[in-house]
């Protein structure tokens, strides 16, 4: 196994004193958390570092150093790109019209191509668990996601497989399902027209950059010197700035947010986080741009500040709807929405409580459904029992069968529930 060591601080380097798999695993986990820290950093951008990295990437793409335009948030990108025209031409090239030589392409296309080629080469240097190439999810993969990384190693899983679940997957899950789509949806135009330029994600590219970086620094992959140097440029950007939009001769770069609020993903064993704040924007920039998110679901501001039944019924997105219903409470929602009670049954194992199954007509959510209203088995600190709604398949008519379904059991099986706490 070879590892690249270069004189550049940001380049991956392999500490040869690492011997045991456990040591490598601990280092990899620490580095993963460090990369998650970069992804959620709220420090002002390190402008000299970011500009040096972008300039280096332009050079690799065969373009002269650009002029830099710094903007306070991604929300400021559309006007900045419009003002910079024609530097930010549509990056999509039709095969029939594309210049044959790459140096005839627009800069964003060249950078995208540079990045894509780098990732293809690095992918050949890292050894992805074989079955994942075939799109399979063997039982251990499911298990490995539910146990701590060290536990997985003790269980006899290969370090390479453990690192895939402890480094690659959590970084990808945190970034690709988290800030990237939430920020794009909230702040960038979504009217179907092609946005100007091509967005690069800076700190929110930490998942792929961090993964390659960590494999090299733990001695599990070695890259050719030129690739290591290019990776260091992408890494430098991810450590120093927010999103950016390259153009011919000019590059627009956004500051990082001033505030980011996250919580661990439920059941997460590998540091996965998601955006969440119960009554403030989950992400806020210095210019007032903001993104609201509840338990990882990007929501419009009203869902956090002023959820009402009328707004919930106008909302086409089921996840947003569910978040908003939880804000006003299932009891209140069911009453105000006038949902029709289909059936009621004593909750097995939860003496004195009942299961209520409601019909949700198509006109309410756009698709017919059922909601099972259940009562917690234990009391809250205020002495009450929390009620919550579970969405269940529309073909279930029996409350006990619906409760059973939620645990993968039949109605008669669930009816044998002896106790609920």
């Amino acid at each position, binding site marked *: 196994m070879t590892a690249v060591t270069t004189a550049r601080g940001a380049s991956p380097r392999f500490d040869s004193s690492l011997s045991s798999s456990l040591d490598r695993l601990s280092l990899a986990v620490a580095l993963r958390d460090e990369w998650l820290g970069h992804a959620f950093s709220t420090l002002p951008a390190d402008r000299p570092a970011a500009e040096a990295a972008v300039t280096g990437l332009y050079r690799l793409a065969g373009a002269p150093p650009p002029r830099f335009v710094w903007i306070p948030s991604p929300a400021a990108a559309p006007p900045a790109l419009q003002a910079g025209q024609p530097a930010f031409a549509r990056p999509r090239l039709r095969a029939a019209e594309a210049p044959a030589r790459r140096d005839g392409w627009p800069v964003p296309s060249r950078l995208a191509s540079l990045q894509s080629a780098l990732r293809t080469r690095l992918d050949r240097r890292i050894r992805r668990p074989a079955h994942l190439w075939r799109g399979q999810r063997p039982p251990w993969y499911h*298990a490995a996601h539910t*146990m701590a990384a060290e536990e997985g190693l003790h269980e006899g899983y290969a370090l390479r497989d453990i690192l895939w679940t402890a480094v690659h997957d959590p970084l990808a899950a945190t970034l690709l399902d988290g800030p990237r789509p939430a920020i794009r949806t909230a702040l960038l135009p979504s009217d179907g027209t092609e946005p100007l330029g091509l967005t690069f994600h800076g700190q929110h590219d930490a998942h792929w950059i961090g993964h390659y970086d960590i494999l090299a620094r733990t001695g599990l992959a070695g890259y050719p010197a030129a690739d290591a140097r290019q990776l260091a440029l992408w890494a430098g950007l991810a450590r120093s700035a927010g999103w950016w939009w390259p153009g011919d001769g000019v590059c627009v770069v956004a500051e990082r947010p001033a505030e980011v609020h996250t919580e*661990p993903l439920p059941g997460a064993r590998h540091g996965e986080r998601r955006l969440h704040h119960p009554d403030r924007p989950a992400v806020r920039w210095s210019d007032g741009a903001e993104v609201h998110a509840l338990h990882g679901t990007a929501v419009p501001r009203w869902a956090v500040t002023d959820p009402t039944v009328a707004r919930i019924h106008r909302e086409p997105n089921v*996840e947003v709807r569910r978040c908003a219903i939880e804000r006003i409470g299932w009891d209140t929602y069911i009453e105000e929405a006038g949902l029709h009670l289909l059936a009621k049954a004593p909750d097995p194992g939860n003496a004195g409580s009942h299961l209520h199954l409601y019909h949700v007509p198509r006109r309410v959510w756009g698709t017919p459904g059922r909601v099972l209203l259940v009562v917690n088995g234990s009391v809250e600190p205020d002495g009450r029992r929390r009620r919550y709604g579970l969405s269940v398949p529309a073909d279930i008519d029996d409350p006990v069968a619906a409760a059973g379904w939620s645990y993968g059991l039949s109605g008669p099986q669930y009816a044998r*529930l*002896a106790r609920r*706490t």
Partner: protein
Amino acid sequence: MKTHTTTPAAVTLADLTARTGLDVLAHLEREVTIPVVAGLQAQGDLIVVPLALLDGVTVPRHARWAAVPAGGVELLRGAAGGNPHSLVADPGTCRWSRRVNDPQRLALGVLDAAAVAYLIHPEHGGTGIAPGTYVIRRQRERSESTGRFGNRFIAD
């Protein structure tokens, strides 16, 4: 209950928190004896199902079992990252494996208890599991939008 059990017949939440170092919220009644259940029981978003009750759920022959230590095994954490469900037992009386084949893909693992084992949770308190072999599953709900199986897991 088997005769070789080392667990006292009447265990309270106070006993359990003292023995394991795990804590529960202050409003839960600590001095009441924790019931021990031999059948199906639920604790929030988890359910404990006797293995024999489940068709098609199997434990692979090569499954690695781990002894449940005095401090317990953390089964699942809650939505805010805290509030774990923990499995606790007297040392040497309970083993646990995450390797279980569940066609519904809801199983977190399987436990095999020779004496009473307990589930403890900061908000739900404690519950006793009679000796036997059980599968622990998590709860799901239907989701129209995302998810590999069109369903999502519940996290309380």
